[in-house]
């Protein structure tokens, strides 16, 4: 029995190793292609970039000429970090308020937040892009407010679930000792909420960093692009597409994600599990 089990497990290890290689191969192949001369990318997509096929960093140089990739990456980082920070700060405060102050109004807010989670973006995209234009929210600063509004549903819902489990006595003790509600929140409640903050920050980062349609419709993209917009721009239109530049930019779009994943892997996986259980 023991020998049989260990043999099965060994076989599984081998099978999963092969699947893992298959799993990462699309990214490796795109990476290989980014160093190939343009014509060979579609002619010999799976060949190593050797001999006359190899062009060094020419595709990357071409890509940088066609789209402002570095600026786009900068704006993506700025928008993501700013929006996530704003969402965590504002929605945790709001969730604490609507959980502690019980009346018809706060209950309505809670159910509106739950409701907003299932509304598809297509439902509001046309009117939202109009509003962002009218209110001049079509800048990387303004879009943070839109992300706060559109991301509030999930964040408030998850924070509320957690705030309910915090014993009221701690907060009461702090208030009796002379803390104002603001001090109570930042000194007592927020530290307790830290694991939930990390979970929400990860879920929102994954969404905002990769989001295409919302920034595409709301940002003034003659001035500001994000990475997904830049990649789509490279491909957009029906003319001939520079496959070399596209491959190079895809590689550059994937690298920061993999670096982030390797560094924060533990938090990301825990965050996803916690988010699923709460949701």
């Amino acid at each position, binding site marked *: 029995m023991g020998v049989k089990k260990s043999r099965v497990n060994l076989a599984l290890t081998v099978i*999963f190793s092969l699947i893992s290689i298959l799993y990462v191969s699309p990214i490796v192949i795109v990476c290989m292609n980014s160093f190939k001369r343009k014509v060979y990318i579609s002619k010999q*997509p799976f060949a190593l970039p050797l001999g006359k096929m190899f062009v060094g960093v020419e595709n990357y140089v071409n890509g940088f000429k066609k789209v402002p990739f570095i600026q786009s990456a900068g704006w993506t980082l700025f928008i993501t970090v700013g929006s996530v920070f704003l969402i965590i700060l504002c929605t945790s405060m709001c969730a604490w308020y609507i959980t502690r102050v019980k009346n018809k109004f706060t209950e309505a807010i809670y159910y509106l937040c739950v409701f907003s989670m*299932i509304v598809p973006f297509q439902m509001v995209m046309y*009117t939202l892009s109009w509003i962002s234009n009218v209110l001049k929210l079509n800048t990387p600063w303004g879009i943070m407010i839109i992300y*706060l509004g*559109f991301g509030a549903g999930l964040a408030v819902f998850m924070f509320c679930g957690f705030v309910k489990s915090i014993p009221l006595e701690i907060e009461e003790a702090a208030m009796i000792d002379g803390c104002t509600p603001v001090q109570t929140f930042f000194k007592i409640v927020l530290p307790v909420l830290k694991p939930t903050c990390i979970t929400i920050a990860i879920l929102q980062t994954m969404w905002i960093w*990769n989001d295409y349609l919302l920034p595409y419709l709301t940002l003034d993209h003659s001035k500001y692009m994000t990475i997904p917009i830049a990649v789509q721009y490279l491909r957009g239109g029906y003319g001939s597409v520079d496959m070399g530049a596209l491959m190079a930019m895809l590689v550059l779009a994937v690298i920061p994600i993999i670096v982030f994943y390797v560094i924060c892997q533990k938090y990301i996986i825990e965050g996803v599990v916690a988010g699923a259980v709460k949701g």
Partner: protein
Amino acid sequence: MEKAIKRYFPIFALPTLVAFTIGFIIPFLMGVYLSFCSFTTVVNTKFVGLANYRAAFSDAGFLHALGFTVLFTIVTVLLINLLAFLVAMLLTRKIQGTNLFRTVFFMPNLIGGIVLGYIWQQILNGILSYFDRTLTYSATYGFWGLVILMCWQQIGYMMIIYIAGIQNIPGDVVEAAKIDGAGRWQLLKNVTIPMVMPSITICTFLTLTNSFKLFDQNLSLTAGAPSNNTEMLALNIYNTFYGRVGWEGVGQAKAVLFFLMVTVIALIQLTATRRKEVQQ
């Protein structure tokens, strides 16, 4: 205490509420109203009743997109959940390298839909080029291309949730079943699956809504080609808004229908799987 907090409404709740009103409530209400109007800009509207809805239902492209989306959703929900559950079962057997496999399988999930679509376009066109075909040769290729892409992206995410569910099953329940003489199938059917039902609920919910609302991957992999045959609902709505002048009202009506469909499907699914959940 409640009274003391209540006075701090402007500091605690107002910023989120203002943003929520701008980013969600107003666009949503305006969207509902505009679906009954004919308009080319938001400020220049004419009430036309249900005409937009009638136009939406008589639009062959919309109905085709609906069929395509439904079929795609059924296939991906089944495939992703079965495979993710299988992998989760195997990876909780304490085999060598489990952590590495988990890390690798989860990774595609972090890459955004646009980038993923172009990565897979390159791979699938590369493979199909050996048969002198491309991804846009027929809708069948586009359909299965999208299915492969979605599986690659989502299996890891669902696997992580299933693994957490399986690890939460108390060991003594499994032991007791084994002592009572339960075979492997009985154990799976009568212990494991009922115990991970909450994970199944959330995973089917996520895959169902993700597949039904798919946009980015659809846009980048095929953009609807050939001739809008691989167009899904979200892309069809987008193209109605921004590709056909004078059709904005119809686009908004389609969007309302889309929202209603997502809501109904989500509610049916949640009540159906929640009912099967057991208390631990």
